[in-house]
């Protein structure tokens, strides 16, 4: 049994008061070209205006990643012969026939290529419907991307096609080890972005096969993909609120796999302002199952009392405080915030001196942003690292599983748990160390691993069982 040291209760408000005074009216501070922010409120930053309709079309039909597999080679894959799966309306031309996470692009050489787009991570299905902006909690980044890429060389014709293939294959080859996770469902896009930075000159964006600054560690910290529909409310991007200033440049930064010059980046930036405008206009889906309105109303009162200080209010006149909560208060797994605050100066400096940082100020704080809770019932698993499978477990830390996996067969989606609010899961006796195979190991969420902890956010622990049930019902209405 671990001892818990508690401050005398009278001191807690004093400490909090002191902290909040320190945080008052202080923007990020700069040292050697690196900005750091205090916890607390994140101010609003003006965003460049764009056309949401044009943005939707561009998101579905234009390519932000400009390298990929030649289309002719793609046609020879077995996947190309299969049904393309669910589709978003508005995919046009070649894209209408491609799976929604792939986009056709004609490279400068004239070779048509198939590229990855944002939606492999930022779209997913719920209750059989494809939902724009819902983070994909089932994406398998444990697969070695190089196997498929290198094998696809056999499908490529000599000449310009082969040149296109090689550019793509070499690029992914350089970053593959930074994007591979050891747990199915968690995302590594932030680590991948840092790896790309390490290989580029910040001023020219020219690619270097050897890293120019020390790359990030090869084991990415797990991140759960946040829903896009919160973009309109959030002043800063990313869990530690470091994405301050212009949001577009952060958005396109994650897709710089093959953006090798400032001119190319500026071209993408010019149409991505429309995409940002679309994302900021995006609304969450409605809860598709029954809601007990009377119970939800009682839950609303619990929410007012327990949650609104950090997460804001909902309904007719919503408010959202945009606050970074200190690690010491939220107590969730600190690795991501700590690494972003203390171990990332070279990347913050890179960003600041690049095209991507021209309109922005990357300034991490030592804490996590309390996110807006719109559509929160759809976004399991919870916390920044996806360590807590359901909202019920999030609101009662005693019920959180230490080792768990989604309850599903193979690639099938687990059933949605309308009581606990999340995907059904199985609690396991052992973590990854006890797994017999790769397959088994990769599907276990092991909260004992660094960065994978499920502690903290214990604010629901003191609720009564009926208060918690009511609160869960209320969350369905958001």
């Amino acid at each position, binding site marked *: 049994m671990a001892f818990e040291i508690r401050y005398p209760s009278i001191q807690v408000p004093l400490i909090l008061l002191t902290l909040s005074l320190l945080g008052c009216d202080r923007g990020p501070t700069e040292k050697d070209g690196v900005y750091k922010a205090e916890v607390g409120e994140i101010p609003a930053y003006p965003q460049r205006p764009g056309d949401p309709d044009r943005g939707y079309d561009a998101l579905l039909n234009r390519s932000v990643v400009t390298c990929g597999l030649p289309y002719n080679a793609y046609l020879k894959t077995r996947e190309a012969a299969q049904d393309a799966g669910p589709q978003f309306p508005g995919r046009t031309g070649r894209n209408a026939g491609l799976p929604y996470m792939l986009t056709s692009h004609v490279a400068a050489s004239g070779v048509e290529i198939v590229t990855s787009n944002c939606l492999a991570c930022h779209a997913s299905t719920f209750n059989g419907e494809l939902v724009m902006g819902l983070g994909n909690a089932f994406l398998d980044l444990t697969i070695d*991307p190089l196997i498929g*890429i290198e*094998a696809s*060389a056999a499908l490529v014709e000599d000449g310009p096609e082969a040149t296109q293939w090689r550019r793509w294959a070499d690029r992914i080859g350089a970053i593959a080890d930074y994007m591979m996770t050891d747990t199915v469902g968690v995302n590594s896009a932030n680590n991948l972005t840092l790896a790309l930075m390490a290989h580029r000159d910040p001023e020219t964006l020219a690619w270097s096969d050897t890293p120019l600054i020390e790359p990030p560690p090869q084991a990415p910290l797990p991140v759960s993909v946040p829903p896009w529909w919160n973009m309109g409310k959030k002043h800063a991007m990313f869990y530690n609120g470091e994405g301050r200033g212009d949001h577009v440049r952060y958005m396109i930064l994650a897709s710089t796999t093959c953006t090798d010059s400032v001119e190319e980046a500026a071209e993408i930036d010019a149409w991505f302002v429309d995409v940002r405008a679309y994302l900021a206009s995006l609304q969450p889906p409605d809860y598709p199952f029954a809601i007990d309105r009377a119970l939800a109303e009682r839950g609303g009162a619990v929410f007012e009392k327990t949650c609104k200080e950090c997460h804001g209010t909902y309904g007719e006149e919503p408010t959202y405080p945009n606050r970074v909560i200190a690690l010491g208060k939220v107590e969730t797994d600190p690795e991501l915030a700590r690494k972003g605050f203390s171990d990332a100066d070279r990347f913050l400096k890179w960003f600041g001196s690049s095209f991507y940082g021209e309109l922005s100020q990357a300034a991490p704080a030592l804490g996590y942003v309390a996110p807006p809770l719109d559509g929160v019932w759809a976004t399991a698993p919870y916390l920044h690292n996806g360590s807590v499978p359901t909202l019920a477990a999030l609101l009662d830390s005693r019920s959180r599983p230490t080792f768990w996996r989604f309850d599903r067969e193979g690639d099938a989606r687990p059933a949605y748990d309308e009581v606990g609010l999340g995907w059904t899961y199985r609690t396991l006796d052992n973590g990854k160390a006890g797994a017999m195979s790769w397959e088994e190991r990769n599907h276990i969420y092991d909260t004992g691993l660094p960065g994978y902890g499920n502690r903290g956010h214990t604010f629901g622990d003191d609720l009564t069982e009926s208060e918690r049930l009511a609160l869960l019902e209320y969350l369905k209405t958001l």
Partner: protein
Amino acid sequence: MKLRGLDAIMKPLFVLLGLSVLLAGLASLWTPGPRGPESTPEPSLNALLYSDLGADGFVEVVEDRPSRFPADHGAHPEYRGELWTLFGQLTDASGGRYDFQLGITRLALAAESPPRASAWAANAVYRGRLTLIRADAPGVQSAARLTRAAAGLAGADAQLRSVWIEDWSLSLSDGEPDRPRMRLVAGGEGPALSLDLVAGKSPVAFADLGLLGRDIGASGLHAYLLPRMAAAGTLTLDGEPRSVEGQVWLDHAWGMLPTGRSRVGLNRFAIQLDRDRELVCLQLRREDGTGTPIPACALILADGQVQSFRRREIRLEAVEHWLSPRSGARYPVAWRLSIPILELELELIPLARNQEADDRVRLWSGAVQAEGRLGGEAIAGHGRIDTTAEVPARSGI
């Protein structure tokens, strides 16, 4: 809404690519070549083996299916191609050591035999190749057979569970379905073999090795291996028979057997180690040597359980290359392999450099010895490495 299987489609580009393309490399490794010093009886037959006949009318392997024994030990004529490859190390009473390799390939020419008057009408070509290396003598001895399946000269029988090509045959005698007994006979003027084989371990489906993803089982080829069969019988060299015994490995695969070249190279390692363990590795790489080679390994334990290892757990590098004077092809022939989490380190040394099996598809298929350490203790073994040639970068790729 059908959700099952949806994620098979919903993958980003880099994991979406089917592994079907791997087949080309994999099958070429198992395709024994005939172009040894012996002249082939019918060069036109040889040409047929390399021609692209298409898959019309043949059963195609579209997904993994469980193996069915003993039936799967027999032939699968409904599939276009099939191959049986055996290799192993034999010793005689005076300690003489012999490493042999014997491959038989069946390639169907048409899905259904068209009615023909001639008894020589045949719808399949069979090819066999035997090589032998003596520990006490330099060089590689070899023999080959190439014949149409006509007039009983060659054939493969699903019922009798045997395959034969002239005076060579492999047949299932009896035994438990998962511990089969077989008889291997390779007669003739060159090195000749007559061996009784008893499986010491159950067959392992290639798909269950977890090499380069499970999908490989669905890549156009079914395959299993019997990685350890006790062998006893007679080896005849220069007309002189001698009793031998040892350990033999059998690969049996069927499906499409493309023979075309691609810019994807594939190396395969199959090693019988001491302590009743076998190691299988694949290494996928660009033919021109650029990019990141992708190794994958599986260790079959004494009880038949399989441990799989992936790229980032494996160090595998060629430490010696050999230039074929016949084809001009350059092959990696000696290797260093380590799997740190297993505490395994192995040097793989070829028993002879000149073990080019096929100068047309440019394949080196050679007997090797293994020496190293496992878990802090010395370990040794022997086996076979198949590698495709390294090709200098072509323009544009």
